[in-house]
C-alpha cells in the first residue's frame, strides 16, 4: 500500500546535475533556510541529481591525497544528516527511472524512490513548487 505524499509548504524539484554549477549547494541552502523557519519541505531529484543519495557513495568522499587526515562528507551523508535533523519536516524523493538509468538504484534508506508517473501527486501535495535546473 503506497504511503500518501505528506503535505509540505514547498517542493524543491532538483533536476540539474551535480558537479556542473552550484545548484545543489543552492538547493540545500534553501532547504535548510526553509527548515529553519519551521517549514515542511520535500525534495524530488531527477537526472544525475539522483546520484546525490546513492548508497554506493558511502559516508565520505575519497581521501584527499594532499591531506590524508581530513575527512570530507559525501553528499549522501550531508543529505542523510539533514533528513535526520528534521524527521517530520523534510522528505527526499528520488525518481526511480532516472536513478536506474544512471546505475544508482541502490539508495540510502532515508530517501524514497518513486515512479515518475506519480510526480504530479508531489506537486499537488505542496503549496509551492520550484523547479531547479534541467536534466
Amino acid at each position, binding site marked *: 500500500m503506497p504511503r500518501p505524499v505528506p503535505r509540505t*509548504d514547498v517542493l524543491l524539484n532538483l533536476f540539474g546535475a551535480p558537479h556542473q*554549477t552550484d545548484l545543489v549547494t*543552492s538547493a540545500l*541552502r534553501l532547504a535548510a*533556510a526553509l527548515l529553519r*523557519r519551521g517549514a515542511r519541505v520535500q525534495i524530488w531529484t531527477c537526472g544525475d541529481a539522483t546520484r546525490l543519495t546513492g548508497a554506493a557513495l558511502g559516508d565520505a568522499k575519497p581521501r584527499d591525497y594532499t591531506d590524508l587526515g581530513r575527512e570530507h562528507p559525501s553528499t549522501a551523508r550531508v543529505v542523510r544528516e539533514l533528513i535526520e535533523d528534521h524527521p517530520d519536516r523534510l522528505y527526499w524523493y528520488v525518481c526511480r527511472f532516472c536513478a536506474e538509468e544512471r546505475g544508482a538504484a541502490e539508495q540510502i534508506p532515508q530517501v524514497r524512490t518513486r515512479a515518475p508517473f506519480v510526480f504530479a501527486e508531489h506537486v499537488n501535495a505542496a503549496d*509551492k513548487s520550484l*523547479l531547479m535546473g534541467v536534466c
Partner: protein
Amino acid sequence: MTAHLLIESGGPQTGPACERFLGDAARLARDGHQVVLFLVENGVTAAVPGTAPGIETFLSDGGELWVDTFSAAQRALPAADLTPRARLVDMDDVAARLLEPRVRAVWH
C-alpha cells in the same frame, strides 16, 4: 496582481538566456506585478554595472533586486561594486519570501 520571486543563477556569461530572463522580469514589473529578482551563484555578476543591460531596465520598471551574500563573497564581489539599488540578502530572506502565500517563484 501577483507577487513574483524570480531567481537568476546563470548570469551574463550564459548570454542571451540571462538577458531574456531579465526581460521576463522587466515585463512582469512593467505589467504592475511586484517582482523581486534574486541573483545567486554566477548570476550575482549581473549586478555589476555594465555587465547585464537588462538589470537597469528591470529596475527602472519598478523591480526589486536582491543579491546573494554567500555567492558574492565566493567571488570576492563587494557591495560597493554592485549597482546601488541592489540589496545583499541571505538565503533566510529568500526562504521567508518564498513562504509568503501570495508569492510565486521561478528558478532560472
